């Protein structure tokens, strides 16, 4: 019995000269909340589409719940529900009709399935709009419909490709509450997002892709603690000081009343304080914090630039 919800084995995907994915191999454990991160064009959506069977990799294999996505596509597609990034809809059908049709594709019908689709409509606050054509809906509503459609067959693995892009605070909360609930019930959640604070708060493990290559694969906590830097914020008064060279080289950001230094983790705070005194900085306040996932992410993805 495999412990992997999804297993990527040496996946490459070429579009002519462009190598969208380059020999990607890793596993997503069953029941985990996994983040797939990377800048635009990193290959995240290509990898997700390959996992969902929407594109065929140039080489390599993907197994979803142990089912090969090409050789045993029925098993892999039944195991996976994808909420795509694009707000796609079908102008000919209402929300309820679309859910019934999608259920049918998966061979599901009958009162039990009707009950489940009604539950989905209710849970995603779509009941009032159930008989509306999907092309008349707002962006947020369309996003909810896509989530409901991805869940009609109760997949073990749920993939959310940028689910909160352009959605309001209410929907974001509804979405995360629902996603946490599904995760608690044992579903594996794979998330891509540009809001890294979301990934930091939700994901137990992350993979960082850049230019089609896997740059990092670690538990989120390990990735953050392994980071070599911490950040010291200093509020000052009396105008912008002249920092001595040891501090100047560590400035991460600077405004008229605040400076943030990016310093090595092992460096004692006394050393920093000494340099601040030497720079004649009129201190108002000083705080220290570890790196955020966003800062780690930027470090990793800017290595090749």
């Amino acid at each position: 019995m495999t412990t992997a919800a999804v297993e990527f084995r040496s996946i490459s995907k070429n579009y002519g000269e462009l190598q969208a994915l380059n020999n990607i191999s890793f596993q997503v454990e069953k029941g985990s909340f996994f983040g797939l991160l990377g800048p635009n064009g990193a290959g995240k959506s290509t990898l997700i589409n390959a996992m969902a069977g929407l594109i065929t990799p140039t080489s390599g294999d993907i197994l979803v719940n142990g089912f090969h996505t090409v050789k045993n596509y029925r098993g892999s597609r039944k195991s996976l529900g994808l909420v795509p990034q694009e707000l796609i809809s079908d102008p000919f059908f209402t929300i309820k009709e679309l859910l019934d049709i999608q259920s049918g594709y998966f061979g599901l019908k009958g009162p039990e399935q009707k009950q489940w689709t009604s539950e989905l409509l209710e849970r995603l606050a779509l009941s009032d709009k159930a008989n509306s054509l999907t092309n008349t809906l707002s962006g947020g509503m369309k996003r909810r419909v896509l989530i409901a459609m991805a869940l009609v067959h109760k997949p073990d693995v749920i993939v959310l490709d940028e689910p909160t892009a352009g959605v309001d605070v209410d929907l974001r909360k509804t979405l995360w509450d629902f996603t946490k609930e599904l995760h608690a019930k044992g579903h594996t959640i794979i998330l891509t997002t540009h809001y890294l604070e979301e990934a930091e708060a939700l994901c137990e493990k992350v993979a960082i892709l850049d230019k089609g290559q896997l740059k990092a694969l670690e538990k989120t906590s390990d990735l953050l603690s392994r980071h070599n830097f911490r950040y010291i914020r200093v509020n000052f008064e009396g105008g912008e000081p002249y920092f001595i060279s040891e501090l100047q080289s560590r400035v991460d950001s600077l405004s008229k009343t605040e400076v943030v230094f990016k310093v090595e983790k092992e460096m004692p705070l006394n050393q920093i304080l000494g340099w601040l005194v030497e720079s004649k900085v009129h201190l108002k306040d000083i705080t220290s914090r570890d790196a955020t996932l966003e800062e780690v992410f930027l470090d990793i993805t800017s290595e090749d630039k």
Partner: protein
Amino acid sequence: MMAFNFVGCWALFVKEVRRFYSVAVQTIFAPIVSSLLYLLIFGTVISAKIDVFTGLSYSQFLIPGLVMMTILQNSFSNTSSSLIQAKMHGNLSFVLLSPISPLEFYIAFIGAAVVRGLAVGLGVLVVGLFAFDLHMIQPGLILLFALLASAIMGGVGMTAGILSDKFDQLSAFQNFLIVPLTFLSGVFYSISALPSFWQQASHLNPFFYMVDGFRYGFFNQSDVSIGLSLGVSFGFFLLITFINLILLYKGVKIRD
């Protein structure tokens, strides 16, 4: 591993039928009216100038041709426009994410194309039967050719829909291939009235055999033998099925 996803295939078939039915004015009634206009214009204005089969008026001769032309064009339109719209809107991925096999996908789409082809063809035929003294000598053969032709053209429409990336390309396929082949398939005339070269050229047009075989079911008269028409039509159906299944299994232009 399920052997055949009957429920999924049926769901896709019903969805495709409901898709064209929801815009029935455009997909059913408009083509019927267009065909009846052809009947009105050709049947009354130029009927005296064209020789057709012995013992038949031109209008009687024309009706089966028009019915078949309507079937050919509408079954083609059904699959091709559905696929290109689904590709452009992105909602083809709803089907592609599901466990529906290429064969089930093919059967569902062709089934819907057959339903539309027959619905529109029947509309023209009913008017023809009421307005003119038209007899169906071999109804079984008529139905067989109607089914074969709509399935074939549903298949051709699927190939065009898969290979086209935008409406413009599909329109070129339709205007420069389907319409000329349909108009030159003997819908409006018997090829025996053509000069020798064009008679020979007509034999290379697969649509001609569908029209000729269909017409044989009404009159027991045709330009070529019914066996040849059946053989060519059935062979064409197998060929287009094979091509589509290869495209779908390989995921050409839809899973790449």
